[in-house]
């Protein structure tokens, strides 16, 4: 028996005991091929998946390294079947490759003829393949490069893409590092991406993904298309690029619902690209408007399905995906892998946090009891109304006021789902509210005021969930959310995880109605937090006054 920190389960989960002296060594060894599933306080859970193993292959690791790492760190004997499975799965990657051919454009070649035979017989692949050039080579229609990769992944024979990229229209871009520097992990992430050609960089919220994007652009030295989730986020990208690079405001265009500029660096929203009129996507031509040398996908885990389809046609351009998590609630991780590229860089939150790049957070769940009258109303309500009833109890307003009072100086966000509730809260807290109908201009003004310290308190709806940098927020109070989405929780926590100047701990409160569906949703979200290693506390609303003592 080894005294290793790792327990390899027969169901392909890996349990890593974090307090073990060799834990960090082990983590480094398994991180390239195992996906971190949960990282609570004592034992982290990793999972071996085909995608993870193929990611490792794409990064140049082979099965032997994987097996060695498992055997070396495993406390108990590693199930033999699992080792065999790892070797077999990894061997599936790279049997097929896409190459450029001087005559036929794009070709699919194989090192293992039966695999090619199997693939050619697959229904999914039919129609993407041209003539057979020799026993090991078939021509591929250039337009099917992405679709073919997607289809091959689905049938379990992922192809390596060596067909290369077009350089795109050259455009000088450099980082302006007079008063700042890339952090080591950002440098590493950009380097791994560039080396790999295309792929996804996974970094926690607040770890500076925008800068990784900027660094990638400075390497590409070409015109760049940046796809972001919404307009506010687009403006932030623009500000950040102007500040951190040699790019001037005139070189950066915004392509959104209101403005449609195409410039050497263009920032477009998902929404405008996926707008559909009479069955066609009128803004799709943007993708061909210039000879882009690099495409940046912000928040890859939110990439809408139509964008995937468009991306399938962009396989000749370099693509970098930025995200906090590879987990997609719609389960389309495979599409990210085949269309944007394998994971190129990954660092767990806790590591970056312990290095001081993001602020630690303290999560507290505050439970309120519904008064009897509301309980009865809740019990007899239609199922679809229950969540609203439970989430919007007047009790929460009282608790929020108390919490706000407890942090008199701290910049505080109050986050919720229901507009009525937010309006009511804003009124009783005497704070401005940002919701869907707030104009972009007004939103920006308020966010700016919050950042500068002019406004201490903001009440925001879910429009603030994504990509809005509010680095000064120290306290967030969540009163309702959209039915326990793990995604949302990560984003909300992300609002608070930007590094604080004085190293203070951020507070994340969730106010929850006891014994209702609200508490159930909250449990879902908390599970995500706990799995990310943020142990949370539960307090009763009645005990709040004592909380700070």
């Amino acid at each position, binding site marked *: 028996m080894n005294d290793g920190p790792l327990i*390899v*389960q*027969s169901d392909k989960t890996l349990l890593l005991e974090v307090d073990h002296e060799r834990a960090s060594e082990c983590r480094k060894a398994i991180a390239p091929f195992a996906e971190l599933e949960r990282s609570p*306080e004592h034992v982290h859970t990793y999972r071996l998946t085909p995608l993870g193993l193929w990611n490792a292959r794409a990064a140049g690791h082979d099965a032997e390294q994987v097996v060695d790492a498992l055997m070396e760190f495993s406390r108990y004997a590693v*199930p033999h079947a699992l080792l065999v499975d790892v070797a077999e799965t990894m061997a599936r990657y790279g049997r097929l490759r896409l190459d450029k051919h001087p005559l036929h454009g794009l070709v699919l070649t194989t090192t293992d003829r039966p695999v090619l035979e199997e693939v050619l017989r697959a229904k999914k692949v039919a129609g993407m393949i041209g003539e057979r050039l020799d026993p090991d080579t078939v021509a591929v229609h250039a337009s099917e490069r992405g679709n073919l990769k997607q289809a091959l992944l689905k049938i379990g024979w992922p192809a390596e893409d060596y067909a290369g990229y077009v350089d795109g229209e050259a455009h000088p871009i450099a980082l302006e590092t007079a008063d700042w520097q890339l952090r080591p992990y950002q440098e590493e992430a950009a380097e791994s991406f560039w080396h790999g050609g295309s792929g996804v960089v996974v970094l926690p919220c607040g770890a500076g993904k925008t800068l990784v994007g900027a660094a990638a652009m400075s390497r590409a030295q070409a015109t760049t298309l940046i796809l972001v989730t919404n307009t506010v986020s687009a403006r932030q990208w623009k500000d950040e690029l102007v500040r951190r690079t040699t790019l001037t405001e005139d070189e950066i265009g915004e392509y959104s619902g209101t403005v449609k500029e195409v410039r050497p660096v263009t920032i477009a929203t998902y929404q405008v690209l996926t707008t559909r009129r009479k069955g066609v996507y009128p803004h799709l031509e943007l993708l061909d408007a210039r000879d882009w040398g690099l495409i940046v996908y912000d928040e890859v885990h939110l990439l809408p399905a139509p964008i995937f389809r468009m991306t399938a046609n962009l396989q000749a351009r370099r693509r970098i995906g930025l995200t906090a998590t590879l987990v997609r609630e719609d389960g389309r991780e495979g599409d990210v892998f085949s269309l944007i590229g394998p994971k190129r860089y990954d660092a767990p939150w806790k590591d970056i946090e312990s290095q001081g790049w993001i602020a630690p957070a303290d999560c507290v769940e505050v439970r309120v009891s519904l008064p009897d009258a509301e309980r009865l109303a809740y019990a007899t309500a239609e199922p679809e109304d229950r969540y609203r009833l439970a989430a919007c109890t007047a009790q929460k307003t009282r608790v929020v006021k108390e919490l706000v009072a407890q942090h008199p100086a701290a910049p505080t966000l109050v986050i919720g789902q229901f507009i009525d509730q937010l309006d009511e809260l804003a009124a009783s807290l005497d704070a401005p509210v940002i919701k869907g109908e707030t104009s972009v201009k007004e939103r920006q003004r308020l966010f700016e005021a919050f950042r500068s310290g002019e406004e201490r308190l903001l009440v925001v709806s879910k429009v603030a969930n994504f990509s809005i940098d509010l680095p000064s927020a120290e306290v967030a109070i969540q009163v309702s959310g959209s039915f326990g989405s793990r995604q949302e929780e990560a984003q909300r926590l992300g609002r608070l995880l930007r590094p604080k100047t004085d190293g203070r701990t951020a507070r994340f409160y969730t106010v929850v109605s006891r014994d209702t569906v609200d508490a159930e949703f909250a449990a879902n979200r908390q599970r995500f937090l*706990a799995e990310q290693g943020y142990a949370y506390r539960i307090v009763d609303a009645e005990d709040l006054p004592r909380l700070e003592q």
Partner: protein
Amino acid sequence: MSTEPPSSAGRTLADRLRSWPPERLARLMGERTDLGTPVPADSGQLASRAATRTSLLRALDLLTSAELLVLDALVVLGETSEDDLVATINADPAATRAAAHRLEDLALVWEAPQGLRPLTAVVELVASGAAGPGSGLLPVSVPRTPPADVEAALAGLSPEADRVVRVVDAHGGRGTTQGAGTGGPTDEDGPVAEALRAGVLRVAARERASGTVELPGEYGLALRGGRTTTSPVDVVPALDLGEREQRLVDRTASGAAAESVRLVEAVLEAWGTDPPSVLRSGGLAVRDLRATARDLGTDETVTALLLEVAGSAGLLAQGADRGGDAAWLPTPAYDAWTARTTAQRWSELAAAWLRSSRVPGLVGSRDSAGKAWNALVPELSSSLAVETRRAALAELAAQDEGAVLVEVETLVARVGWLRPRRPRLREDLVRWTLAEATTLGLCALGGIAGPARALLTDGPDAAARALDPLVPPPVEQVLVQADLTAVAPGPLTAEVARDLGLVADVESSGGGGVYRFTPASVRRGLDAGWSRDEVHDFLARVSATGVPQPLSYLVDDVARTHGRVRAGRASAFLRADDEATLGELLALSRTASLGLRRIAPTVLVTDVEIDELVLTLRDLGASPVVEAHDGTVRVVRPDRQRARVPRTRPAGQAGSPGAGAAPGETDAVAERERWEAAAQAVRAGDAAAAQRPAGVAPLSPSGSLAALREALEAGVSVHISYVDSHGASTQRHVRPRKVEGGTLTAWDHRVAAPRTFAVHRITAVARSREDAAPSGS
């Protein structure tokens, strides 16, 4: 006879056996076990038993290829001296002699006056091909053609005739030719006729009609250069071996061993609560096998193996489920098994597998009739299984430590050489043996592990001792985390695993375990009778890291809502708006036998039937009103008996025209009640018949009194044997309500009315069985 020197020849096998020293006889019976059971009376009986066909077929299974070919040569040659035999076999002389001696040891061959001679029955088996692959030569003619004549005859054949002869030789010494023997349309100048004339071929005596010709053994031998085979017979196929660290082999195997123990425990634990049913053919349904495999997270092959091994080890057997249907259930031996250490448990499984004739490898494939083999069917066994398994493992165990098999097929070939008979099943058995041994942790990476070596040489206890240091020791504590999971950093002790499995869901298993607490899982624990504090205590005890606050909250939250609504069973209820009325009833000593319980200030419930309740209350002067199911008051009046109007229309049609709806309904109600009463009487009769105590000893009146009082106290029903005033003895099923003044007042279930009985006429009292069992509600 004992004075006879051992090497001298005897007239019969029995004679030879009489001259054998006892050790040799013991060895014979040790190898051919069927000869020694039951112990034969004398050598004559032993010899005759040894010559039976079935026994011989079993003995032939024990032979290697070389031995089989030596036997074949003896059949070809007839009675032969050992030297002649050596000259005829294409092998190292020492190997031939060793083989001959072994044949003799096995009593397949004995030393007759002119040399070695196979038993007549053996000759038949070999000649008919039942013995397995031989040289394909026919016996030499008697008397044998002198070698010089043979050479001359062969040399004199024309090339066409020579070709025909060689073809015949290549086809087992026989060939069919139209009219070869009958002088029909055969070409007199043809090669067959020529060979026949030369005496190289002869017409098969028994198959004259079909025109079969034979090549006598001596000619065949001559064609093959004087030996029965052209290639050497004593070349044992070599194994393709590689090198591995033995430590690695042991470690990997021990992992598999622990895993197989865990899986067996998991499946039996699950089947203990939810057993799959037994097919009519005696096996396990494919659907159940598939579901079990899915639950275990493994495939059907592994699952079938584990089930078969559990069955062989006596941990799993057919039993009856709660509904009384045949089901697969863990045995009491399973409970004893779970109490042992992992190493001991494994050694039991491994030993059971080693001695089991079951063939789990067949599960999922189809038999010759096209029917799929189910796991656990009785027919799923083979007499070759044990021996092949041992032979294959022995080959591996014979290698040095660290030598591992690289190519499985070389082992298949080697075992195939060692045991050439019934090759197809044998080959599969070897492959299965290796796969199964790897699953069970006897082998790993193609090498045999230390514990398995110990098992083969020194038995299960030694194997358990050898495995013990290799398997992780069981842990009693888990790491409980804020995401409501508990991680066991190793295999849990059976007790902790069971308890944890009750209050948490298993999320991942293997070397360690991941358990998740959910509201449902905690509720399951509470449903199983745990209290909130017990759950807390348990968590505090098993957690090595303290109980995270969210988990405590979860337990409290669930416990708070658990049991808020309560359900129970009662036959009748009493309710009154006035609490005092009910309190008064409850206080009366005469209502004690009704077993009234207060479940709310204004509600009493009882287990007695409503009729009994109402009558008793009337006796007491209370005047209850009976409520129907819908809460309306039902008026009860004494049944007036009437004859039934003959039914004129079939049942199921609407009420008769012209008749008012209301009377029709009342009739229907009365009708229904009457049949319900009848049914109850029938059921009571059934119960009495079924529960009538057999041979209850007659009781003295004082004994009866004691028994009746006891029943009264307990509020249970009893069967009494009662002799009525006419002297007729009857059995009654009654619930005593009062015993005083030499009479018993009791509720008679059969007539559904209270009756009185004279105690001195009661000859026996026995508790009815349904009441004797502790009541669950």
